[in-house]
């Protein structure tokens, strides 16, 4: 069973919703970072001014590969605005993790229950 890092870039006002949805889904462990960036719409143009460093929040969470689809669905459902979604709702990036260590115990984790598992 392998580990997967899910980095999702979401609207700052949706970050709390995503964190709460992850908690309810049984994945409490997460790290939140403030970031700024632009997407394929090249930022927002208001009049003559283009804003292309739009504030976003990056939420990083590491889960088991088996739970990947469930966690991604949880994040997408929580981060989407309106019914069909809008430009600027964000992106989710998934990458493999080779190793994970818990500093307090000093052990290399192989049992993934320490980072949460999907609630049936």
């Amino acid at each position: 069973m392998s580990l997967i890092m899910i980095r999702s870039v979401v609207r700052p006002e949706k970050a709390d919703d995503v964190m709460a949805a992850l908690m309810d889904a049984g994945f409490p462990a997460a790290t939140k970072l403030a970031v700024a960036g632009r997407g394929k719409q090249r930022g927002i143009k208001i009049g003559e001014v283009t804003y292309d460093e739009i504030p976003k929040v990056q939420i990083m969470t590491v889960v088991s590969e088996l739970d990947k689809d469930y966690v991604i669905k949880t994040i997408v459902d929580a981060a989407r605005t309106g019914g069909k979604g809008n430009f600027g709702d964000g992106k989710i990036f998934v990458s493999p993790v080779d190793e994970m260590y818990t500093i307090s115990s000093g052990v290399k984790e192989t049992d993934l229950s320490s980072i949460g598992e999907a609630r049936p």
Partner: protein
Amino acid sequence: MKEVVAIVRMNKMNQTKKALTDAGIAAFFAHEAWGRGKGLVNSIVAAGAAQGYQEAAEVLGSKGKLFAKRMITVVVPDDKVSGVVDAIMSVNKTGQAGDGKIFVLPLYDSVRVRTGETGNCAIE
């Protein structure tokens, strides 16, 4: 080439920097981050505590809150990964919950902007 992402306590940063330097790795990124660990709580209780309800705050205790952390990213060749992990582990280990996690991720390539070098020589 590997990317080592470590989430550590803020007050351990100076010691971590020194330990990394002693281990022969001078270059790293640091980000401000907020995080929480494996404590599961009910999100309704958490929302109540955030609104200032005393009962909810008592039930919640210190669980479910976001704590200020530092996220360190170090990019190293494969053979130095264990050295970095040991260096970070040695100074950050207090034995209590909240010490943080270390993740090792594969990385495809890196480029030194100044010279255009790629691969391992860009990070050595």
